[in-house]
């Protein structure tokens, strides 16, 4: 069944979009990530312009992360002060990101920036995760206990000024690295249409040593708020949020996420991380190939103004 999207201005097959949302939702439920980094490229592949795809996926991430936040809230595993500091950085980062987004679009280098950013971030994060999870698997096989949190062990991050106490995370650290992390993720989220969970979760665990049970809930709160702000900013600056497309994606996504979460519960943590690393790496590779191979058509055009006003 074809349905015409009011902002993307093209008809799409509603079942295809639903199943895309469902498939990405499945992975996101299984791995506890937003899945924006998978959904945005899929949408671009169906012919939706990168501008609309990125902006609309931010809206979809709002829905999926809110659903997650409610769950973690009930379990009381959210550190709100920590989320608040991340968020302040996140909003600043998003504003810069949306501004850069419109600038790059005007200069014609948006697609390239998105591709290069995807390649570098996905391969970096994917590679790190793969190494870490394989090590954890080897460790657990040799019978040693797997522990991510080593209390008493501090790194350079803990030597910075402006310290603040985060009770639920049992942390006493400087707000600088937290705000910087927030800014980075808000910025990436706005430019790439990704929630940034796959960057945030490892950063909170390894860099700040936040307990794992608090990390996902807290990172979801930050992602929710940042993406909500990014949606509004995209709507105001670029008019590129397609509400209908977002709704179809959300419906597919939340259903897929439920099944994904159930499958995820039967897998071990390090196995999940290794699988996710492979998914992340393969998406990165896909973008790298596109950048290096000679395109079928060297020419392209984009409408700057007029036509359908």
């Amino acid at each position, binding site marked *: 069944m*074809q*349905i*015409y999207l*009011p*902002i993307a*201005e*093209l*008809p799409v097959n509603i079942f295809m979009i639903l199943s895309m949302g469902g498939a990405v939702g499945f992975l996101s439920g299984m791995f506890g990530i937003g899945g924006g980094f998978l959904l945005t490229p899929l949408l671009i592949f169906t012919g939706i312009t990168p501008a609309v795809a990125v902006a609309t996926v931010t*809206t*979809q991430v*709002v*829905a*999926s*992360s*809110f*659903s997650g*936040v*409610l*769950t973690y809230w009930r379990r009381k595993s959210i550190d709100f002060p920590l989320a608040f500091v991340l968020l302040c950085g996140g909003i600043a980062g998003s504003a810069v990101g949306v501004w850069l987004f419109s600038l790059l679009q005007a200069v*014609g*280098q948006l*697609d*390239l920036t998105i591709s*290069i950013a995807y390649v570098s971030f996905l391969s970096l994060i994917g590679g790190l995760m793969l190494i870490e999870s394989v090590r954890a698997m080897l460790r657990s096989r040799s019978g040693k206990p797997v522990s991510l949190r080593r209390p008493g062990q501090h790194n350079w991050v803990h030597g910075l000024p402006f310290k603040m106490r985060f009770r639920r995370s049992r942390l006493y650290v400087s707000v600088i690295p937290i705000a910087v992390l927030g800014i980075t993720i808000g910025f990436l989220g706005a430019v790439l249409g990704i929630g940034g969970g796959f960057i945030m979760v490892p950063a909170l665990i390894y860099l700040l040593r936040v307990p794992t049970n608090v990390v996902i809930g807290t990172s979801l709160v930050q992602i929710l708020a940042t993406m*909500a702000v990014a*949606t*509004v900013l*995209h*709507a*105001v600056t670029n*008019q590129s*949020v397609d*509400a*209908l497309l*977002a*709704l179809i994606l*959300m*419906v597919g996504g*939340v*259903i897929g*996420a*439920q099944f994904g979460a159930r499958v995820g519960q039967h897998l071990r943590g390090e196995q999940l991380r290794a699988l996710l690393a492979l998914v992340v790496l393969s998406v990165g590779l896909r973008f790298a190939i596109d*950048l*290096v*191979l*000679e*395109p079928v*058509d*060297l*020419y*392209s*055009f*984009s*409408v*700057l*103004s*007029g*036509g*359908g*006003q």
Partner: protein
Amino acid sequence: MSGVAANSGLLARALLALVSLLCLAREGSAETLVTALSEPTVKITSNFTGAEIVVFGTVERDATTVERPDAYDIVVTVSGPTETVVTRRKDRVFGVWVNNEAVRFMDIPSFYALHSTRRLNEIADEKVLRDRGIGAANLEMRAEAGVNDSAERIATFRDALLRLKLQEGLYAQRSSAVGFLSPSLFRTNIPLPANVPHGNYKVTVSLFRGGALLTSEQQKLRIAKAGFEQFTYSMAHTNALVYGLATVLMALGTGWLAGVMFRKE
């Protein structure tokens, strides 16, 4: 010497005769066109996957019309609202394909479909077509030229733009697509693809005979989003902030609903 003068006098007289003959022919060919569209407005609604408009009309002749052996030729063009586009070319920079050079074209039709009874070059000379801007290749495309923009470079980008527009179905040229149902009644069905831009269109019907343009008629066509599509689009553009906030609320609602529906306990 006198021979040359006589010759030039003869030539002048012959030219005069030719001109008066042409004028006579103009007056004599008193054909007029009466045209109509199947619908003046095409609505884009949720189930829009493209549409088709029918352009039809008759060639009206009066008593002074000179009978000639040549058949009538009809050219129908549908041209969309103008837009400014930028055509870019990718080049390899450090092993990566990057948008490099670009040429901007101002006020080009966003959509252009041409239907004719025969191939354009059989209907009229290149010059006639060019003067009237008939045919995709003859469209006026004003390039915003830089200082060192050569004519060839602009032509290359212009050709690429035409090719891309054709590929996307936004430009189309179909000969033998206008049919005569009777000696004077003609019609053609013009498909509008799903990605057709919305706005005000001009439908021009031109009547040719023996390589000359006799007359032409213009109709207005409007392609507009309707219902939900129209509501969403105008909200997104005129009330961007409200639209953004509403979308976020919708997302929150969906997320909450999902949580409630799938809660295990």
